[in-house]
């Protein structure tokens, strides 16, 4: 059944088509409130940036970032609060140089296969629209720049969303580079070790912070990796509603990969009751598909406030310790298998 949706188009502001089952009523409810937040934040940011100062990593900026960067400022602020700006300054013509080629055929084929399969329901990507060409440039440049990673499926969604948010190939390239090389552990390398370790870290955090959910999920036989691989690989792109993803990325560029655990733990903690209500494997798998689309995931401003409260204390040193522990376990396991 289609709702009346006078004020909202069938395509959202980032070019994604809204499907027949799009809940216009909930969205209107959300936007009527969120537009006020956006207006107020836009004013604060223009005051901050209007003083002519470049954005520095200060506590004020960190607080501002947590409350959301206005979409117009995202490209420059993301560059400034991460190390991307610095990386670019050290080799300003890197991107253009790589694009001068030549390209390896194997990498070209790999990337080209995924171009029409990235956001096919987005008007900027569908058919031969120009973002497919931009996406090719960003991904092929990065694959040649970082041979250890090359091209990993999932990077297409990250680069694609970077293009939608920044409208610039080169900015997207640098932001992709800073994410893969500085912000995240080895998620995208050939063995995806960093990803597998981080999923173990999450499992351990759930075990200590939401023990009943952890036990229940284990009892029903659903591995955490099955649930969360895409969450980590895509940094919630293609998982959570787009505005929520961009708000997460605001914090990710400032505060690093710890944010991903906060988001995972909040999703799990907020939906504890519905997860515990599942009594078989199938309903649990469906439940994890539903919780990333529900109202609490859509209301990005409240959601982003809750990620700093709901999971409780989560220090970088805890994460680093857990990462070291599971990486060591993994190496020992692999050595055993090779013997």
């Amino acid at each position, binding site marked *: 059944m289609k709702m009346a949706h006078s004020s909202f188009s069938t395509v959202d502001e980032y070019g994604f088509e809204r499907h027949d089952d799009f809940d216009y009523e909930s969205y209107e409810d959300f936007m009527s409130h969120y537009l006020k937040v956006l207006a107020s934040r836009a004013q604060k940011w223009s005051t901050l940036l209007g003083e002519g100062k470049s954005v520095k990593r200060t506590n004020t900026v960190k607080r501002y970032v947590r409350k959301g960067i206005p979409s117009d400022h995202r490209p420059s602020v993301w560059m400034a609060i991460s190390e991307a700006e610095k990386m670019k300054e050290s080799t300003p013509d890197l991107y253009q140089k790589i694009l001068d080629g030549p390209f390896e055929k194997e990498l070209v084929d790999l990337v080209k296969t995924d171009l029409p399969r990235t956001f096919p329901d987005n008007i900027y990507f569908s058919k031969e629209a120009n973002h497919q060409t931009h996406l090719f440039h960003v991904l092929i440049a990065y694959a040649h720049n970082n041979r250890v990673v090359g091209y990993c499926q999932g990077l297409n969604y990250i680069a694609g969303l970077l293009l939608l948010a920044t409208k610039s190939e080169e900015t997207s390239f640098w932001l992709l580079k800073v994410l893969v090389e500085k912000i995240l552990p080895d998620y995208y390398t050939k063995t*995806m070790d960093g990803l*597998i370790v981080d999923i173990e870290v999450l499992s351990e955090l759930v075990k200590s912070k939401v023990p009943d959910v952890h036990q229940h999920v284990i009892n029903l036989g659903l591995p955490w990796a*099955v649930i969360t691989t895409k969450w980590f690989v895509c940094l919630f792109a293609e998982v959570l509603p787009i505005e929520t993803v961009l708000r997460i990325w605001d914090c990710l560029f400032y505060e690093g990969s710890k944010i991903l655990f906060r988001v995972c733990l909040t999703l799990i903690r907020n939906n504890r009751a519905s997860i515990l209500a599942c009594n078989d494997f199938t309903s649990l798998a469906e439940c994890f598909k539903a919780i990333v689309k529900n109202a609490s995931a859509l209301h990005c401003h409240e959601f982003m406030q809750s990620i700093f409260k709901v999971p409780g204390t989560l220090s970088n040193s805890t994460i680093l310790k857990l990462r070291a522990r599971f990486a060591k376990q993994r190496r020992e396991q692999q050595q055993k298998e090779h013997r």
Partner: protein
Amino acid sequence: MISIAMATNRSAQRPNGAPQTKVCQFKLVLLGESAVGKSSLVLRFVKGQFHEYQESTIGAAFLTQTLCLDDTTVKFEIWDTAGQERYHSLAPMYYRGAQAAIVVYDITNQDTFGRAKNWVKELQRQASPSIVIALAGNKSDLAAKRMVEFEEAQAYADENGLLFMETSAKTAMNVNDIFLAIANKLPKSEVSTGGAGTRVLNDADAPRASSCCK
């Protein structure tokens, strides 16, 4: 004619005075190289749809679909996996405990057939010994660009005891049939074959069993 129930969501109706049928649940995994059409086969089977450009699958996607045999309702729990080689280390999670697998290749691409053979080998070594494996040569609508001969794949399937069909998610050719062939081959006795996912249920215990078996 195969009857397929669209029993994929929670609101599926309870049978109205339908006769008591046995409901069996099976875990099925799709494996194969990137872009051979794994997700498209599932989308065709589960929703009857086809998208020329199907989004690349990250990690895996989970769907369910119910098939009706004469006296049994077979409910498939389908894991559709990512194809890129580097996701390989995650694959055992999906085929562990699976009663059935569809290994997919693209008939227009010889490399994908080689990769399919590797998947079959891995399943024969690592998966449950009783797993039912089907080989699907997908994109049969592109026969003009064929690089893998039907006879070659058929001979390979025969040697390895696999079900084999050429399929087209685009035209729907053989899509339901391959799932049906698997359903027919799966043991539907009360005795579990050892896989963690085999569950023979009574209709009364199956909240999402559909009323497709009339």
